[in-house]
């Protein structure tokens, strides 16, 4: 019976590099997928492309490719990635050049384009899902609009012989659905099969998050060797009737662990209704999935199905949305919390007194209430105990860089103007790239696949 082995070599743009090398050399893989594109990442990439038309792909593209390509070519492992970000064509050109530098011959690179729908949404009548306002209202603040595209064009590239497929805003699970659909000849209206493929993709797309990353809680959920965490492999076989048709595992001897618990946490990660996980390929149903450990670091997942894919594609909109200014300063020893509170009040008064117009402002005490707010962080008697040290964090959003910058400046001025013993002040100001979404009819987003050969 045919089995396909897919590894995931990155779960976000900044992920570790070496686990993918381990997968390429020791994973006995058919496919190696890199998922590197978050909602905000593509908006940043569009800004980079606007500055230089040869840019706009993932900054680690070359580093990741040069570290795995020799092993992948030698072993016949095909690579699929959304590291094309805002500029898959430029990314493909760069990988072609890299292949030449590495002396690789007869390499076929597939590029999927068509997800960039900025012109369409700028000039069409589309509504922002979160606010109900028209997309046109964003005017020139809108910097990116990318439709989440599905597995079909990637599968076409594979059928066309591509050794490497580079996309822009593909839906994360689709990067994994594509090789399964291609290998098993799934039709793109076989919703049940596509639902199972989506489960595989969903479990793998965050890489180490299913092999023991983002899981450890010492004493309760111990995980060994997180500094050399192994990234996941899915073994998928043709026969959906078999309980072990999908096995999640990792390279033997690598760090981390694959257990029913790690798989359950990732199964529900960023999921709302488990019976309706919407992707461009299908509406997957994870509500009747079962997991079982059949051996050490080998877990089966079965029971996923699917229903017909949506007619509308989700579009991620990136837009400039003012600036955030922030300042921090620490206090230690007896009375530290009271001094930090006083410091926060002083800065708030200063910002009012000097007329800084912030849309929103927030004052946290890191170590006391910064993560979950005063109500959840305290019991009925107030803070559970006084920490030895505490850090004031004052942050606000403003329309201009200059006003946002004033927030950090006021925190730094606490050195000579604020409470006793403040130390380690820092300040930063950044532009906000907000993300919203809209929906466009699938027919308006034709994708094309281009194949180049070195």
């Amino acid at each position, binding site marked *: 019976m045919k089995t396909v082995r897919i590894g995931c070599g990155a779960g976000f743009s900044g992920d570790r590099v070496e686990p993918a090398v381990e997968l390429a050399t020791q994973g006995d893989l058919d496919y190696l997928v890199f998922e590197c594109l978050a*909602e*905000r990442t593509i908006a940043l990439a569009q800004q980079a492309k606007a500055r230089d038309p040869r840019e706009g792909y993932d900054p680690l593209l070359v580093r990741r490719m040069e570290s795995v390509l020799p092993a992948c070519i030698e072993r016949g492992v095909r690579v699929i990635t959304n590291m094309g970000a805002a500029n898959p064509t430029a990314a493909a050109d760069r990988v072609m050049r890299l292949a030449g530098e590495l002396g690789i011959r007869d390499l076929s690179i597939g590029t999927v384009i068509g997800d960039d729908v900025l012109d369409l949404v700028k000039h069409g009548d589309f509504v922002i899902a*979160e606010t109900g306002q028209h997309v046109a209202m964003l005017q020139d603040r809108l910097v990116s609009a990318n439709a989440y595209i599905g597995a079909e064009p990637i599968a076409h590239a594979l059928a066309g012989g591509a050794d490497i497929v580079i996309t822009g805003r593909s839906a994360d699970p689709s990067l994994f659905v594509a090789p399964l659909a291609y290998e098993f000849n799934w039709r793109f209206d076989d919703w049940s099969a596509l639902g199972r493929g989506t489960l595989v993709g969903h479990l793998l797309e965050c890489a180490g998050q299913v092999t023991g990353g*983002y*899981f450890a*809680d010492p004493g*309760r*959920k111990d995980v060994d060797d997180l500094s050399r965490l192994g990234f996941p492999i899915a073994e998928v076989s043709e026969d959906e009737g078999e309980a072990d048709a999908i096995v999640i595992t990792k390279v033997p001897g690598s760090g981390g662990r694959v257990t*029913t*618990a790690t798989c*359950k*946490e*990732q*199964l*529900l*990660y*960023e*999921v*709302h*209704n*488990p*019976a309706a996980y919407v992707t461009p390929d299908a509406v997957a149903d994870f*509500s*009747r*999935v*079962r*997991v079982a450990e059949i051996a050490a670091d080998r877990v089966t997942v079965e*029971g996923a199905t699917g229903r017909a894919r949506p007619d509308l594609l989700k579009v991620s909109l990136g837009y400039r*949305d003012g600036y*955030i200014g922030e300042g921090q300063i620490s206090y230690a020893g007896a009375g530290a919390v009271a001094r930090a509170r006083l410091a926060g009040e002083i800065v708030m008064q200063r910002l009012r007194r000097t007329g800084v117009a912030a849309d*929103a*402002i*927030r004052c*946290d005490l*890191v170590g006391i209430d*910064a*993560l*979950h*707010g*005063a*109500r*959840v962080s305290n019991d009925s008697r107030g803070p559970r105990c006084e920490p030895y040290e505490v850090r004031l*964090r004052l*942050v*606000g*959003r403003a329309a201009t860089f200059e006003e946002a910058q004033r927030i950090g400046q006021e925190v730094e001025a606490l050195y000579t103007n604020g409470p006793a013993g403040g130390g380690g002040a820092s300040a930063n100001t950044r532009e*906000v*790239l*907000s*993300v*919203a*979404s809209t929906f466009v009819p699938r027919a308006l987003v034709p994708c094309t696949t281009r194949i180049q050969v070195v």
Partner: protein
Amino acid sequence: MKLRDIAHARSGDKGTIVNVSLIAFADRDYPRLLRLVTADRVKQHFTGLITGDVVRYELPLIGALNFVLHGRVDGDVTRSLALDAHGKSLSAALLELEIPDDAA
């Protein structure tokens, strides 16, 4: 005792909506989660952090609940002023929930 004694959790965000899964370490504790950790109780626990509804999904085959929390006060991840803009640490807050001891 606290929820963290019988369950583990993971949270993730999509805009202003955050989900927190709650998974029993042992399947025998799933009925307790079902009984004790209602959507109302979770909404109450997160007062001040969310303004909208809490929807609970039940997954008996894996001994898990999935809570979807609407209307994060901190706003969506890209423009939030919060230190943890994603709300990824909310799983730890849910596990702090006090529950009756084993005997109950």
